[in-house]
C-alpha cells in the first residue's frame, strides 16, 4: 500500500545522485582535459507475490563523454594536446602506468618531462624523456616526436617520442582524480587517429548550458516527486478518515 511513496523515494534518491554528477561537472568546467559525466537511470522491477510488478528507479551507471574538448593555444612549448582519441602515459611513484589527456607538462629537476604533479611522462618505449639542460627550444611534432635544438640552435636532435596509448573501450577506464585514468586493458598496438598539438591545451568538454538545463530538470523532477509524495500522503489520510467513519457507523 505504501509502494507509490517508495517508488517516488527511489526516484528522489536517484535524482540526488544526478545532482552530485552535475555539481562535479560544473566544478570541473575549467579543469584541463576533464570529460563530463552523465548518469543513466534504470528500472528495478519488484514483483510482489500475487501483485502487479512495481518499477523502482535506480541510478545504474555513470558514463563519460569522451569527445575532445576545445583546444586552446597557450604558446607554452611543453603544453601538449591530443586531437582525436588517445592518452599520454605517465608513471606514478609506485612504478605503474596511468593515462591522462591533460598535457600541461614541464621539466623536473633532472630534465625529464613530467606532469604538474611530478609524474613522469613516458615515451613510446616506456622510458622517461630527458631534455639536456643546454637546450633552448623544444619541438614536438604531430606524431609526438620530441626534438630539441642543440649546438647553439644549429642541429635538431631527436630526444624521444611521447607515447600515446589508445584503448578499445574508453568507458572501461576508471578516473582516479588528478586527471589520471587507470584500466586493465592493454593499449591497442597502433594509434592512427591521434595528433599531438604543441603549444595548446585541451580544455574541459563540459558545456555550461547543458549542465544548467540539466540542473533545472533535476530540480523540477525532484519537486514533482516531493509533491506527489505529499499528495499520496493526503490520499492515505483521507482513506483512513473515511474508512474509520464507515466502520464506526
Amino acid at each position: 500500500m505504501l509502494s507509490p511513496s517508495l517508488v517516488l523515494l527511489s526516484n528522489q534518491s536517484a535524482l540526488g545522485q544526478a545532482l552530485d554528477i552535475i555539481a562535479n561537472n560544473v566544478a570541473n568546467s575549467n579543469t584541463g582535459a576533464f570529460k563530463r559525466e552523465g548518469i543513466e537511470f534504470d528500472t528495478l522491477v519488484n514483483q510482489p507475490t500475487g501483485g502487479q510488478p512495481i518499477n523502482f528507479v535506480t541510478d545504474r551507471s555513470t558514463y563519460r563523454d569522451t569527445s575532445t574538448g576545445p583546444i586552446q593555444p597557450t604558446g607554452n612549448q611543453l603544453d601538449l594536446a591530443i586531437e582525436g582519441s588517445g592518452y599520454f602515459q605517465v608513471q606514478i611513484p609506485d612504478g605503474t602506468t596511468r593515462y591522462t589527456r591533460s598535457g600541461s607538462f614541464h621539466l623536473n629537476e633532472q630534465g625529464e618531462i613530467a606532469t604538474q604533479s611530478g609524474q613522469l611522462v613516458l615515451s613510446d618505449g616506456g622510458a622517461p624523456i630527458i631534455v639536456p639542460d643546454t637546450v633552448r627550444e623544444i619541438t614536438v611534432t604531430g606524431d609526438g616526436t620530441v626534438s630539441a635544438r642543440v649546438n647553439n640552435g644549429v642541429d635538431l636532435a631527436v630526444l624521444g617520442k611521447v607515447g600515446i596509448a589508445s584503448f578499445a573501450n574508453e568507458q572501461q577506464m576508471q578516473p582516479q582524480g588528478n586527471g589520471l585514468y587507470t584500466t586493465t586493458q592493454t593499449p591497442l598496438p597502433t594509434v592512427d587517429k591521434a595528433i599531438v598539438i604543441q603549444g595548446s591545451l585541451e580544455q574541459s568538454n563540459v558545456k555550461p548550458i547543458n549542465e544548467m538545463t540539466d540542473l533545472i530538470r533535476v530540480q523540477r523532477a525532484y519537486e514533482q516527486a516531493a509533491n506527489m509524495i505529499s499528495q499520496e500522503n493526503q490520499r492515505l489520510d483521507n482513506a483512513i478518515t473515511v474508512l474509520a467513519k464507515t466502520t464506526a457507523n
Partner: protein
Amino acid sequence: MRALSIAATGMEAQQLNVEVISNNIANLSTTGFKSSRTEFQDLLYQNMRSVGSQSSDTGTILPSGLAVGLGVMPAATYRINSQGNLSVTSNPLDMAINGLGYFQVQLPDGTTAYTRSGSLQLNQTGQLVTADGYQIIPSITVPATATSITVNASGQVLATISGQVNQQTLGQLQLASFIDPAGLDAIGQNLLKETQASGTPVTGNPNTNQFGSIVQGSIETSNVDIVSQITDLITAQRAYEMNSKVINTADQMLSTANQMKS
C-alpha cells in the same frame, strides 16, 4: 547531498583563479614579470559500482560503473616563461635578456636570487646593482672617470674612460639557467630563488650555448597578454556563478525535501 560541497570546491578553485589573474593584470607593466596560470585537477572519485567488476557467476562484467567525482582542486600555479617584449629605453644601464637566462643577484643575507629585470643602476662605489641596491654577480665596478658604458650581446661590459683612446673592459656579465624555470620560487621584488624543483643553476656567458643575448638600452616588459587575461577573468567569473547556482539548486532541493508533508 554531496552537491553542496562539490560546488563549494568549484567556487574556491575559481576564486583562486581570479586571484592569480588579478595579480597578472596588476603586474602588467612590471619589468620582466612572467604571468601565471592556475591548473586544476579533478578530485577523487567515489565508486559505488566499480566498472569492470563481475556482474554474474558466468563472468559477465559491468560495462560501466557508477562513480561520483568529488569536485576540483587547484593543482599548480604555473609560471609561463615566454619572452616578454623588449622596450627601448636608451638608458645604457637597462639590459634585457633576449632568450633564456637570469641575472644573478646577491641578496643582503648572502644567498643568490635570480631576475629577468635588467634595469640596473650604479651604487655609491660604482658597482652594478638592481633597483633595490642588490649587487649583480659577478660584481662589475664602473670607475668614476668613465664617460660611457657599452654592453655587447655577449655580456662584455666596456667603458670609455676620459683621456683614453681604447675602451677598457670592466667585466663579463654572466647568466644562470635552470632546467625547469617554472620551478623557481618567486619571492617578490622581481626576484626568484632556486628550489629543488628548478634544479641547480648552470651559469655561462650570454650568447653561448642555451643562453640568450644581452640587449643594452632595453628592458623586457611583462609577458602578460591582457586580452587573454580578461577573457580568462570572464570565464572564471561565469564558472563561479554556475557553481553558486548549483549550491542554490541543491539548497532548494533540500528545502523541497524539508517541506514534504508528513
